[in-house]
């Protein structure tokens, strides 16, 4: 399993991560980011891609 952290003080809800890892990240009806904090290892590559594309560099994978 992998654990995901988003620093919500940095996150500006651009949603770039949503397309890289749609099973983990989503924008709700208020345009705010929501995410699943624990995911299967099979999501690692997608979440790493989401980490890369986050404009605010707010996403981390906690090993």
């Amino acid at each position: 399993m992998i654990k995901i952290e988003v620093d919500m003080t940095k996150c500006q809800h651009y949603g770039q991560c949503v397309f890289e890892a749609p099973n983990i990240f989503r924008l709700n009806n208020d345009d705010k980011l929501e995410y699943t904090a624990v995911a299967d290892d099979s999501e690692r590559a997608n979440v790493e891609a989401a980490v890369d594309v986050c404009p605010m560099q707010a996403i981390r994978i906690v090993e």
Partner: protein
Amino acid sequence: MGGLRCAEALRRFGYTGAITVIGEESWKPYNRPPLSKEVLAKEVSHQAVAFEERSATADVNWILGTKAVSLDVEHNTVTDSDGQTHRYSALVVATGLRPKRVVVENSELANRFALRTLDDAMALREQLQPGRNVVIVGGGFIGCEVAATATKLGANVTVIHNASHPMLRQLGDELASQMQLRHEAEGVRFLLKRSVDDLIGETSITGVKVDDGEILDCDVLVEAVGSLPNVEWLSNNNIDRNDGVLVDSAMRVTRKDGSPIKNVFAIGDIARFANPLFDGVPRRVEHWNMPTETAKRAASVIAAMLTEAPSYPGILDDDFKPLPSFWSDQYENHLLAFGLTSLADRAELAQGDIGGDCVFEYYRENQLVGVCGIGMRAAVQSYRSKFI
């Protein structure tokens, strides 16, 4: 950033050999967009913008504060500004852009700033104080972001721009004029279809002479008039350097005769390539996600080549059509865009209200080439599937 992302991707694609990154700046890679936005408004430091280092790239050899000065593709060597020569099996050119500057007669004055590097942002931040007269030359995205930030910090801001509205090329007439109104409501003054005639001052800048004769008081001049690709060091290799570096869909640098150099790649802002999402015209795209996308593409090819993987050379023919993306924050206006809105010949309001949050679609003839919203991010996001 491109260099770092490429190194990370090389490890991910199974390359275990040596990686050296040569960089002109003394800082390790950092995230540039906040430099004109929240970081400029708050505390400017490397820590605030540095990319997190990953264990997979802990053994990368960083040569910082040193720039690459020449390339010899026949002998596979790069020479740096310390006089050291480095041999390579594969080379990635990620030397990026430098800001253009305003060309005037009276040019040797203090308090002129461009905004590209962390050092630039640190120097500018000190000058953005309440009550100072800040003149920004260039009303593109960087100029408008600095205008918003400087205004929030209490400066008196004037923007001199050569077109009829700020950000016109990317946003189109209707949205650009709307953003102009929002800036003006915050107190920014725009001088449109104007340029700088000369600067006034003896040691430090005190004024700007506009081409219509108006003289503006100026304590701080910010020059946001575009960028130039750092490609001069590639000369004498018969490389196509007409506006950045021409690369093929595998990011391989192309000679003037159109043939690719097998082990030399270019990524990021300087890579000029055709994107089949739009057409066959090679373009440089200065949007934020391009260094990451092109770095990954180059790394996948390099790793396959150097590890002699069965996927090479077939991987050269894989599709590469990254969707450009940009965003901008100006006051409480959060812009998010996909595609290449600057290719459009018309823009249409698709959702929302022009005076509030809204989404515009950008068309070239009948082809959707871009989408941009103020707010309404989920709605803008939903357009991605129309491109990919």
